């Protein structure tokens, strides 16, 4: 219940406002005008990311890399823990 509400809040944070992407890149293959920055849409997330000459986009990119690497390493960590448990278990039996 609370989880779904939280999910909704998080999703609406990332969602663009009713004005969808200013340039329709789905049907128009390429335009020499990049119009995205002119109209970034509303919402806390969008206006925060667009502030300060888009520097927070760079922060977001570094955080994405950091998160993916940490998630991956913690998974490898889990694999190793499982092996260690097995090893302890088998040495107790012997």
């Amino acid at each position, binding site marked *: 219940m609370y989880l779904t509400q939280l999910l909704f809040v998080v999703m609406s944070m990332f969602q663009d406002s009713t004005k969808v992407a200013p340039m329709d*890149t789905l049907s128009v293959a390429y335009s020499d005008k990049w*119009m*995205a*920055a002119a109209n970034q849409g509303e919402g806390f997330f969008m206006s925060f990311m667009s502030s300060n000459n*888009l520097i927070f*986009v*760079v922060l977001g*990119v570094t955080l994405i890399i950091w998160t993916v690497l940490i998630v991956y390493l913690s998974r*490898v960590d889990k694999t*190793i823990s499982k092996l260690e448990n097995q090893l302890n278990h088998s040495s107790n039996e012997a």
Partner: protein
Amino acid sequence: MKVWKYLIIVWMSLVIVGGFLIQIPFIPILEQTARNLFFHVPMWMAMYAMFLMSLYHSIHYLRKTDWLADIKAEAAAKTGIVFGVCGLLTGSLWARFTWGTWWTFAEPKMNLAALALMIYVAYFMLRSAFDEPKKRARISAVYNIFAVSTIPFLLYVVPRQLTSLHPGADGNPAFSEITAAELRFILYPAMVGFIALSYWVYEITYRAYRVRYISEQTISNPQ
């Protein structure tokens, strides 16, 4: 921990600090996101390095039937996927604030990169389909050679023939023509640093997989 790992920590710290602090020319729309060049592009270079290493070990396996080579190929492919996912996600965020959308099907490089990753996901699905280690190693080594041979076409040849928002595509100026020279002072160290970091991640994965393989073998054939 070996010395080169401490070296990577220091090197990468300097790259990140330099990437945020270096003076860069102002380009409208791109603005400060030009700094993403130091983080988004090396992800792909690290992925290529890992996939090439995976190819090397797969060929080595087919020639020598060394089970360690199979484990190495698997670990390298896994690490390559991790960096490829980083590249896709960072590219998606960058695209939202410069091109105006998280994802577009009009952009060939973006979609073909996702396709390349899916080809590598299939490599792991193929591996999981076999219980017998020798059969799994041989067939997945052959598949891996196919998978890596698609990479240059998917990410270099085809995107350059089509209109694309990425630099170097048909009708666009190439990377070397539109990139300020000073960006290279960070970009190349970042490439070296991230490839070295990916090697470190690969090494940890390889060690874990190697021990797992040995423990599986001792469980199935107790002495």
